[in-house]
């Protein structure tokens, strides 16, 4: 009990979360002191007549930790699992879980080679990162320094316990609570989510589900010689990063396929977007993903270019140290949108230039990412002054 009490004081489920969990499991309140305690009995079908459990709600009370630990132990015992498992089940209700399952032969002891396990875990990591990167302007490829918000997100997500059988790697994505700083499963803070909006983390998992579905659809539509459907899917969050992440698992010998599942947190303050999403990706599709990663990836032109034009797009996420602008410029005689990443000071100058309809001049390396053009390694960024009449 002492370990459980200690664990609960350091970021485990609250009494309210436990009560919410019991409600979703069909338990009924049979008595309560509002804001202080509630007493629950299990559904009749559970077969425990006369049993009830007291759940503490007021965290300020001196006996709150002991009562909560006692309640968790009691319910776990009645339902036939360990107190730690009870804590885990409740905590997972406040997190989305993205599971990556490979269909392959594993040893009778349920193990797989470490090299394959590493590929699987890295595929999970890179897929989550690709979805997080797609929260800003959608691009066919991301490289270089990641936005701060993406970095923070990747530091908050957790690797769950792999499940036996077909090897499954679950990634736990704790959701921030709107309007508050939440103690996440890791015990660290999370950014605020605006009232009425999905938490940022939910946006990422939604994007992941949408993007993987779109990538699979693009793979079905494409052929070895025509990968344009993947370009069309960039708007849905597909990128070379995402395709490379998933496609890399084809290097696992004896792999037959992969399944990506997204389970939504069961929280009353964050609406789950329907049932959990399960996407099966057979090996041939994973190979097509690997091809698409090359198609969408960088094609270095290695060309120094000076461009000028008006700014038509602005994009900056709060907290980031860089912003992105889109300049309508002539490249090779063709009017194109050229994307440029700027440090914050220059980005603010760009915002003023956009508002005042002024031309800007940039010099850097023009890189083609599929049909998208970016100017990188910037050496010049100048706002053209207004010519007086």
């Amino acid at each position, binding site marked *: 009990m002492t370990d459980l009490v200690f664990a609960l004081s350091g970021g485990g489920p609250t009494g309210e979360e436990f009560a919410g969990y019991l409600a979703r499991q069909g338990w009924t309140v*049979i008595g309560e002191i509002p804001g202080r305690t509630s007493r629950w009995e299990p559904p009749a079908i559970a077969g425990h007549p006369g049993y*009830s459990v007291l759940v503490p709600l007021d965290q300020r*009370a001196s*006996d709150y930790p002991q009562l909560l630990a006692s309640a968790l132990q009691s319910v776990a015992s009645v339902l036939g699992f360990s107190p730690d498992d009870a804590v885990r089940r409740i905590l997972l209700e406040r997190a989305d879980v993205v599971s990556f399952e490979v269909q392959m032969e594993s040893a009778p002891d349920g193990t797989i080679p470490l090299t394959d396990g590493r590929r699987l875990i890295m595929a999970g990591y890179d897929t989550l990162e690709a979805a997080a990167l797609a929260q800003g302007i959608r691009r066919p490829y991301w490289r270089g320094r990641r936005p701060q918000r993406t970095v923070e997100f990747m530091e908050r997500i957790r690797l769950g316990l792999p499940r036996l059988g077909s090897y499954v790697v679950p990634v736990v994505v704790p959701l921030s609570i709107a309007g508050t700083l939440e103690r996440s499963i890791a015990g660290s803070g999370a950014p605020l989510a605006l009232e009425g909006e999905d938490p940022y983390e939910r946006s990422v998992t939604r994007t992941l589900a949408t993007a993987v579905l779109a990538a699979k659809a693009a793979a079905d539509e494409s052929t070895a010689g025509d990968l344009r459907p993947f370009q069309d899917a960039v708007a849905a969050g597909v990128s070379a990063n995402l395709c490379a992440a998933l496609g890399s698992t084809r290097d696992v010998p004896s792999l037959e396929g992969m399944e990506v599942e997204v389970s939504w947190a069961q929280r009353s303050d964050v609406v789950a977007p329907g049932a959990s999403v399960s996407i099966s990706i057979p090996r041939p599709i994973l190979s097509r993903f690997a091809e698409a990663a090359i198609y969408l990836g960088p094609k270095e032109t290695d060309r120094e270019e000076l461009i000028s034009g008006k700014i038509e797009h602005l994009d900056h996420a709060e907290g980031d140290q860089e912003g992105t602008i889109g300049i309508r410029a002539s490249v090779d005689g063709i009017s194109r949108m050229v994307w440029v990443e700027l440090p914050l000071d220059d980005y603010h100058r760009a915002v003023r230039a956009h508002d005042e309809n002024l031309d800007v001049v940039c010099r850097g390396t023009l890189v083609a990412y599929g049909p998208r053009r970016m100017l990188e390694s910037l050496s010049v960024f100048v706002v053209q002054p207004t010519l007086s009449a």
Partner: protein
Amino acid sequence: MCMERFSVAHIAAIAANAGCGLTEERVDEDGIDLHLSRQGQHAFTSTPTIAIQLKSTTSWTESPTSIGYELRKRNYDLLRGGDYLVPRILAVLLMPRELDDWILYHPEMIALHHRVYWMSLVNAPESPNEYSVTVAIPKSQLLDTQGLVDLMNRVAPDGLRL
């Protein structure tokens, strides 16, 4: 250990007779041994619960109105003050010294010796003692079946109505 199990059995019998549910805490790290609850609407709340620190003793002092019991300082402090979600009481089982006298067997019944008294220390003052505090448990607060029902009817949202 035997005295401890006997005292739990004693309370369990009373609780069952009073229609109370009993939960035994496996590790006494907060000074609480048992929780008793009784379903249904009572005087001040629905399905009240009390937390019991249970002691048993073969030596006590007695006056016309109270039982004197020497309580460890740590246990005394765990029962007094604080904001507790579940009201706490001290319950002391007075027992015979001889093991053979704990239970009296009769062809038609068995009798558990002797009796349990209870008290609340929620408003008790801080003690300067280092090891123990002698508490005076009112003899009027006998924890038998009716006493337990009456106790449950004292449980209110803000604590025990004394």
